[in-house]
């Protein structure tokens, strides 16, 4: 009776999931594979500040369309604020105002940046006014000396700019440069200084600040480059590596000196940027011409803020990992420490990559075990002992990070993302099993956990699977159905065949 109930339930779930999935594939043309073209991006600026209870005026510079990117669909999320936008020669700007605000405020700006597939060369433009340098007094003298030095090695405007960029990045700056930078070896200051020096040489230039569009869960850093008027056109020059032109994934956000956001009536202003390939827009591009937006798309994960979307990209893989664990444990018979510990470890491997992850994890657990065996002699009570191991684990993480950093091994730093409580419990359980059942059993279960974590990692970091579950979360209904069915799987586990083989030899 209860079996039939189960079958009906799983059938309903599977049919529901499958039909939603097929509808989205067949009717809505949603892509089954992750898009190869990354031409439409959603970019987001998140501004937070502490309001002091006075009138607040917040201004944020916005990106504008240019020969390489078209900026579409500005969206502002700022409950309760008045909003106006304006533009001048340099920038577009949004101004938020409110009569009174108190406490932590968050304001979002989101837009779609569509990369032009074949950007033309920069447009021909009239020569601007000859630039005026803002350097004065001793700074002017130092700037002139610097310019002379650079001019000696260059032949034309392009080589002048490249030499200047190289000079500004010398690992051992000379006294002139040190004086001009005033011990602020900041890229933003360097690029403004470059503009001033070029003005001394009579070359019109301005600084450009923007993002390098990359899929990443982390916040994007602002990068800087130069636009120089040369041979009738404004031409970009990369600043981090001296070369003419910039890579196609540089999205200009604002131009000229000054910071992207300014505030009056608040403090602790912070602006963070993120970007992601906009799958929804890619889909929409293909469907352009149809008038309506189906609710299924409007109510999809794509409507969430980008940062939340990135979180869900990961979260949606946890059930998939759990399902794999069900198979590993109940069908194969692998024994692991803790039911879902391997899934969490696999999530932590995301940053370290598999090999480093396994090495770091073994290192951490191994060192932890040594400490735990020592603590055993002190005869501590359970909870203080667990807390002591936790503290030691955190110290070990710090230690490993520092040592790895000294050795120049970048992956060592991501050890910080290991779930320390899980590692603590693993160490404790492993010691207990070690003492009670012997080292063999402890190592067996430890290896089983690592194996399960590695398998889970491979599964949940597959780009295709990630894409499928993110675009079609209803597939989880099918996973749920399969899990329920496995909940009544009463066949032998793979390892039991091995366990009971003695029966076959003697019994029959």
């Amino acid at each position: 009776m209860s079996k039939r109930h189960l079958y009906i339930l799983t059938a309903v779930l599977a049919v529901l999931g499958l039909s939603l999935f097929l509808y989205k594939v067949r009717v809505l043309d949603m892509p089954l594979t992750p898009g190869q073209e990354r031409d439409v991006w959603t970019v987001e600026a998140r501004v937070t500040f502490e309001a002091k209870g006075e009138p607040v005026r917040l201004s944020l510079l916005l990106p504008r369309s240019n020969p390489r990117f078209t900026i579409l669909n500005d969206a502002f999320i700022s409950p309760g604020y008045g909003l106006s936008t304006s533009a001048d020669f340099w920038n577009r700007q949004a101004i938020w105002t409110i009569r009174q605000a108190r406490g932590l405020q968050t304001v979002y700006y989101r837009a779609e940046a569509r990369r032009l597939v074949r950007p033309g060369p920069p447009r021909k433009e009239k020569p601007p006014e000859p630039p005026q340098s803002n350097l004065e007094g001793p700074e002017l003298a130092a700037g002139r000396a610097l310019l002379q030095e650079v001019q000696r090695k260059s032949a034309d405007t392009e080589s002048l700019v490249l030499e200047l960029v190289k000079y500004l990045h010398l690992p051992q700056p000379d006294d002139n440069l040190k004086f001009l930078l005033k011990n602020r070896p900041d890229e933003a200051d360097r690029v403004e200084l470059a503009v001033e020096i070029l003005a001394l040489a009579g070359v019109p230039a301005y600084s450009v600040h923007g993002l390098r569009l990359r899929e990443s869960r982390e916040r994007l850093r602002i990068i800087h480059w130069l636009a120089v008027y040369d041979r009738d056109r404004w031409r970009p020059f990369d600043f981090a590596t001296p070369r003419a032109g910039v890579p196609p994934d540089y999205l200009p956000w604002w131009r000229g000196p000054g910071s992207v956001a300014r505030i009056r009536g608040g403090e602790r202003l912070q602006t963070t940027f993120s970007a992601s390939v906009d799958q929804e827009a890619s889909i929409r591009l293909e469907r352009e011409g149809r008038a309506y937006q189906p609710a299924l798309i409007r109510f999809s994960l794509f409507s969430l803020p980008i940062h939340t979307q990135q979180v869900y990209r990961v979260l949606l893989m946890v059930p998939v990992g759990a399902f794999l664990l069900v198979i590993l444990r109940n069908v194969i018979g692998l024994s692991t420490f803790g039911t879902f510990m391997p899934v969490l470890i696999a999530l932590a491997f995301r940053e370290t990559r598999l090999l480093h992850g396994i090495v770091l994890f073994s290192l951490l657990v191994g060192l932890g075990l040594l400490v735990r065996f020592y603590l055993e002699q002190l005869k501590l009570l359970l909870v203080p002992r667990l807390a002591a191991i936790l503290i030691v684990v955190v110290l070990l993480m710090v230690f490993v990070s520092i040592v790895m950093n000294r050795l120049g091994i970048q992956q060592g730093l991501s050890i910080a993302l290991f779930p320390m409580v899980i590692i603590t419990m693993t160490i404790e359980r492993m010691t207990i099993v070690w003492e009670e059942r012997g080292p063999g059993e402890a190592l067996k279960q430890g290896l089983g956990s690592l194996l399960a974590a590695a398998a889970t990692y491979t599964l949940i970091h597959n780009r295709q699977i990630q894409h499928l579950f993110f675009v079609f979360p209803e597939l989880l209904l099918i996973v749920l159905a399969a899990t329920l069915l496995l909940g009544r799987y009463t066949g032998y586990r793979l390892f039991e065949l091995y366990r009971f083989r003695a029966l076959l030899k003697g019994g029959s």
Partner: protein
Amino acid sequence: MFTLAAQLRAMGVLGINARNADYTLAHNPRRLYPLVDDKFQTKQMALKAGIPVPELYGVVEREVQVRGMHGILEKPEGFVIKPAHGSGGDGVVVIAGLHRGRYRTITGNFYTPPELDHHVYNVLSGLYSLAGQPDQALIEYRVQFDPVFDEVSYKGVPDIRVVVFLGVPVMAMVRLPTRMSEGKANLHLGGLGAGIDLTTGTTLSAVCRNERVEEHPDTGACISGLTIPQWETILDMAAACCDLSGLGYLGVDIVLDKFRGPLLLELNARPGLGIQIANGQGLLTRLHLVEQHRPALTSREERIAFARGRFGVKAGAAG
């Protein structure tokens, strides 16, 4: 691989998934688990029903009681400390006696009083309990085991495991401690399991670490052919425990004391599957047989007679 599975199925071997889904989950209501998971409750329930158990010397419930416990530990015949909610023999310490102010275990290790205290603290903090919850430590009579197993056990206490299904004993084995299992009789610790002919109560060949053995690895004595005394009583106790606990699928652990006869040690709501290897027989065939005939068996005597009739060596070949 699939042929192997088919062969096992043909033998009626019960797998862990099938045991959980079709037997423990189906026949053991969860609300009854505390009765068997808590050895203190089990003991009281058995005493009330007149089933003999090892005498309880005391219960340590809180840390402050640990200092006072040594007063009741001065027993010449030793004692046993076990966590009330322990599983699989974890956390059980068997002390043979006091020696120059230190406690000597049956395997010849020593515990100083502070070390024994620490062990009890660990028990109380839930180190050995099933869900890691705070636990109690039981201090009880150390069984003076019957000489019948002297030849085939390496120190420690051998015990008898009977699997009872719907009140009918279906399979039994005797678990013998080895040097590897450190005096404990649990199979996963390296103990030896010998199947028992339910009809006669004599031992069959044995299994150690999933391998068939004929002789005890430490003593070298032949394991099969030993007749267990008071077999009828043991079967009756096992069947009675099933009625008492209300659990349909139950593992009953019984020890044989030299003076007091069979004593109930503990009950297990999720008995292990190694018993099948020890007996060289699958459980499923017998379980199906019980399911078929159970409605016709009313009294406990009938059920035991049914078990002795069907699940012996001679009957086993036929059934």
